[in-house]
């Protein structure tokens, strides 16, 4: 049952870390006197951290995974990054030139 115990702990750690990161993000937005730029960076960082926590603790992605599965996930993340980053870059630039 030690295997079950360790897995149980992993889910608990994942849930607690996710809750803490969510609370931090809400706090930054609701607190007075945090500049908008700073707040956005902290919310973004907390979001990325929480996604990493859940990938590790809930979806069990790690170095033990089969290689082709990891390749699929990493390549999809790269594609999504290129498309999101590229869209925002091009459209912001276009927006700037229209004025």
């Amino acid at each position, binding site marked *: 049952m030690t295997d079950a115990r360790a897995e149980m702990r992993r889910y608990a750690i994942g849930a607690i870390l996710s809750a803490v990161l969510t609370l931090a993000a809400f706090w930054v937005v609701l607190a007075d006197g945090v500049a908008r730029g700073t707040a956005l960076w902290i919310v973004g960082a907390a*979001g990325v951290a929480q996604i990493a926590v*859940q990938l590790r603790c809930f*979806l069990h992605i790690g170095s033990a995974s089969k290689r082709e599965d990891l390749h699929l996930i990493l390549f999809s993340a790269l594609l999504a990054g290129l498309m999101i980053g590229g869209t925002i870059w091009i459209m912001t630039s276009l927006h700037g030139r229209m004025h």
Partner: protein
Amino acid sequence: MSGTAHPGLNLGASDARAHERSETPVFGFWVFLMSDLIIFGILFAHYIVMTDARAFGPGPAQLFDLKSVAAQTSLLLASSYTYGMASLAMKHRERIRPVALWLIVTAILGATFPGLELRDFANMIAEGGVPQRSGYLSALWALVGLHGLHVAVGLVWIAVMLALLAVRGLSNRTKTRLLLLGLYWHFLDLIWIGILSIVYLGGLA
């Protein structure tokens, strides 16, 4: 543990046969999830590009209710955790009752989520925030609406799994399907983190 662990909960240690049988479906399901990720990614990019395209229509400050958003976030996170408990019960206890009970808890938490979301949508409409009002609102409805639709599909899937458990018990095929549903359910929470950070908290910061 077997050497061919796949991303997601592995059954290898407790049920080698079910583990072996689930490998190809789990890989295929990851391909689907990653295609879904691309769709959501494009909708996120679209939303960010459209942030200022309000055409003098309502924006985040008029549309969003952070209390409701906080409740929805807690519900999804809690249901992700309880689904994990259902997976572990399936893997280690091999009895239908605990699996079914955790699934029911997950379904109750999950079903409250669209309830709150629909109320928020009704409030947005009351504020004049209909999809055709501005580019910003079209992007918002497409992104948040697609996520809500995914949650609704997940709820139907949980109901189907409960029926399958009652009829067929914990067969290898049922186990594989429960693994896939687990990946789907946890994936929806990941997308929600993005929506929370970019749409709600980002919009109100």
